[in-house]
């Protein structure tokens, strides 16, 4: 499977708009068609809702042997997946919340991540673990956590975090092709985002970030929901003559330091946005890499934005202050640029809603 690369970049050429959810579904179908070793399991994988729509139709197409529900036994089932993986299969596990994956932390960290290394490279674990990060509508302390940094710290794991539907498909394919365990992070607020997605089988390289928007004054590094927020603010700042470059991570680990450093070398300024807690987070790592390897290009202090170090509160009144707002991003950019910006005047919202779009009806 690995030798058969057909790498595609997402571009404006195609004209096929589909949702992030549909893109994930397509990636699963293409991979299962291509490699009989790929199978899909997860709580509710074949149920009528199909893990937020991503696994719909799979069982009908590929049978109950390759697409199946599982007992609520995350840790054991991860071990089962590891066993299958070292026996030549390519399991894909789906978890409706990243929070539930904590149950499987032992198998992921102690077994999957180390298998290749601790046996001197004799066997590997090609396992993809899809984890959905919740947000909004009172998801609260145990249904909204993003453990990207926790996973990224473990040697042997790769962590992937797509933003656009095109990335979702290409990166999920790459994750399934990958001969190592991959934590594939899907942000719930991206589910209904539409984007241009190539037809057919393709994969995008892991470990490559993407300049989502070119700019010259300041670099904003972000991923997933935060990348979209950064784009909104970048757009809004154009009228003030501020040119923001947005680097979309795509992969958290391995981190594409080259692209980030390249961008900072150009702009000299950096704001890092974190889709999780920023203390000890992915944004901390990025800031450290730039401080170590890109110090000479920095013209100003680096700023981080992300979740404060508190559990997610359930009340919408508190959650509204928990996630960074457009205004927060604007102010951070102004701070690093040394200019005073008025987010209100620029039309930036200073409160964060608790639903991804106005059509949303609770509960999730």
């Amino acid at each position, binding site marked *: 499977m690995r030798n058969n690369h057909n790498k595609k970049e997402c571009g404006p050429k195609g004209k096929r708009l589909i949702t992030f959810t549909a893109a994930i579904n397509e990636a699963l179908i293409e991979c299962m068609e291509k490699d009989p070793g790929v199978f899909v399991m997860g709580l509710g994988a074949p*149920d009528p809702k199909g893990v937020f729509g991503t696994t719909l139709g799979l069982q009908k197409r590929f049978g109950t042997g390759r697409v199946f529900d599982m007992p609520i036994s995350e840790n054991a089932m991860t071990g089962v997946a590891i066993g299958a993986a070292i026996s030549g299969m390519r399991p894909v596990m789906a978890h409706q919340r990243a929070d539930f994956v904590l149950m499987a932390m032992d198998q992921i960290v102690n077994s999957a991540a180390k298998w290749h290394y601790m046996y001197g490279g004799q066997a590997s674990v090609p396992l993809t673990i899809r984890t959905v990060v919740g947000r909004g509508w009172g998801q609260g302390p145990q249904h909204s956590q993003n453990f990207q940094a926790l996973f990224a710290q473990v040697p042997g794991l790769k962590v992937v975090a797509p933003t656009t539907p095109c990335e979702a498909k290409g990166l999920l394919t790459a994750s399934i092709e990958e001969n190592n365990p991959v934590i594939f992070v899907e942000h719930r607020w991206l589910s209904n985002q539409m984007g241009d997605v190539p037809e057919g089988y393709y994969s995008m390289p892991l470990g490559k970030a993407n300049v989502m928007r070119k700019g010259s004054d300041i670099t904003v590094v972000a991923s997933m929901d935060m990348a979209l927020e950064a784009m909104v603010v970048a757009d809004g700042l154009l009228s003030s003559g501020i040119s923001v470059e947005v680097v979309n991570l795509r992969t958290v680990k391995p981190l594409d330091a080259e692209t980030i450093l390249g961008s900072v070398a150009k702009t000299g300024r950096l704001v890092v946005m974190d889709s999780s807690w920023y203390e000890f987070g992915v944004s901390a790592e990025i800031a450290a890499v730039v401080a170590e390897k890109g110090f000479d290009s920095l013209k100003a202090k680096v700023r981080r934005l992300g979740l404060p170090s508190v559990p997610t509160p359930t009340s919408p*009144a508190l959650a509204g202050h928990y996630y960074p707002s457009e205004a927060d991003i604007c102010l951070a950019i102004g701070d690093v640029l040394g200019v005073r910006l008025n987010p209100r005047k620029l039309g930036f919202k200073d409160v964060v809603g608790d639903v991804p779009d106005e059509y949303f009806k609770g509960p*999730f």
Partner: protein
Amino acid sequence: MRTGNNKRLAFYLEMLRIRVIEEELVRYYAEQEMRCPVHFCIGQEAVPVGVCQALGGADTIMSNHRSHGHYLARGGDLRRMVAELYGRETGCASGKGGSMHLIDRSVNFLGATSIVADTIPIAVGVAFANKLRRRKSVSVVFFGDGATEEGLFYESLNFAALHRLPVFFVCENNLYSVYSPLNVRQPASRNIYKVARSLGVESSRVNGNDVEAVNRASASALRGIRRGRGPYLLEAMTYRYLEHCGPNCDIELGYRAKEELEQWKKADPVAAYERKLIRESVISKDYALKARNRIIKEVGEAVRYAKSSAYPEADRLMMDVYAQ
């Protein structure tokens, strides 16, 4: 042993109260102002009522995501529960928890969490502390059939049996986990209560829609636990009417048969009991109607209380992370 009429009346009123509160909250949920996931327990009321009516004041309770019935049957404060669902500062968890994280320490409802099976070992720990401190208190934990698939279930029962801990495991077997029936999760020959036995925990199975049967089984289990016989597991067979999470009926999704739902509704824990009490002249139709209206009013007041309560101030966000 026949259950006395005072007790039967209490069973009925408690079950009716939970039913009507849930039905009213379903109605209010449509306003989109309770902005958190809500797992209603309509159809399952006899289990919490039968169990809680057998408890003493010093006994403690823990629960899972579907916790309203457990909280209310234990006497948890309704206004503070509803305020919690509305995310207000007057909520039982100050708005920080929502429907899946109810707590009312004043009635020894120690907490509910949303991670399946997570409170099972915690309740065992409560029992462990009670034993060490020689407190005469039984630790009760409610969980679903799905929770018995987690390793935590086996590990917790093992430890409870090993140390003969005063803990009462109540498994509400409603045949489903979300849209997944038992047969895609457990072998057909499985009896959850028998698994408990093989782990060294005494157990039985009961019709979870028969409040008197649940109460009798609980009372007898609790007697044994209090005498130092160690933990007990009660498997109560019951059924959820609404969708797993949210206010709607989801029968059109097709993961369960319409006939199955109809069948269970015929054995509705509240309606069947009401008919029985009317038949046996314990209550009148008029009494039932008045009771229902009284509860509707009570919920209305609780909702008004919630809606007129303030949202937590922004500075509450950073508070409570660490104890002082």
